[in-house]
């Protein structure tokens, strides 16, 4: 599946997108954040405070307990500040 990052999550991870294949135990958005945070310093920094990370699956906002099975594109970003 494809991951995309925005704002300071993108800056900390150091890339705008990547393709990943998480292990089968990674079922939810929260699991995925935990798995990513363990991938290296840049990810640990980006996801150091999971409570403020927002996620979207296939361009729809989702809460952390959402299952990721079947997702094509998962986005991570901080709280939005548009308008």
């Amino acid at each position, binding site marked *: 599946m494809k991951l995309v990052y925005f704002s300071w999550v993108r800056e900390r991870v150091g890339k705008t997108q990547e393709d990943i294949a998480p292990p089968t135990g990674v079922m939810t958005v929260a699991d995925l954040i935990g798995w990513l945070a363990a991938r290296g310093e840049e990810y640990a920094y980006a996801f150091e405070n999971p409570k403020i990370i927002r996620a979207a699956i296939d361009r729809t906002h989702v809460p952390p307990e959402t299952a990721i099975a079947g997702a094509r594109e998962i986005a991570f970003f901080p709280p*939005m500040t548009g308008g």
Partner: protein
Amino acid sequence: MTVRLQREDFDAGREAALLTHGRTDIGAVVTFTGICRGREAAGEIAAMTLEHYPGMAEAEIARHVEEAKSRWPLLGVTVIHRYGRLVPGDNIVLVVTTSAHRDAAFAAAEFLMDYLKTKAPFWKLEERAGETRWVEAKQSDGAAADRWRGKGRNEAAE
């Protein structure tokens, strides 16, 4: 309904005229224009860069315009949100709502702005003397957006 994301500036008066031209059923037109300010809480800013999630931003805004149309008897809605680098005084966002009566036009414009401030996938990066800083979400904006939750047609602005 018109939803546009663009780098270019917009003309609020022209967009309102596009919604009202040749019609005699519209009694109320509300426009909201958000402008980049030169001074924020943390001091003077030199510029601001708006990042957005292409694809998601447009679809999400359109979905909320549909929600506004289901809550209030609107005759037209236009939302334009700019992205890219803006300097103080530049337009950022435009919401235009039209209805037979003013209460629906006002309520829908406020609803859409509260939504855009908190849920639309945009992020502001401020530039000030030698440094950049991502703007943090305001609690007051979250509270403003929450006031519409669970409220039915025509009662949300009460």
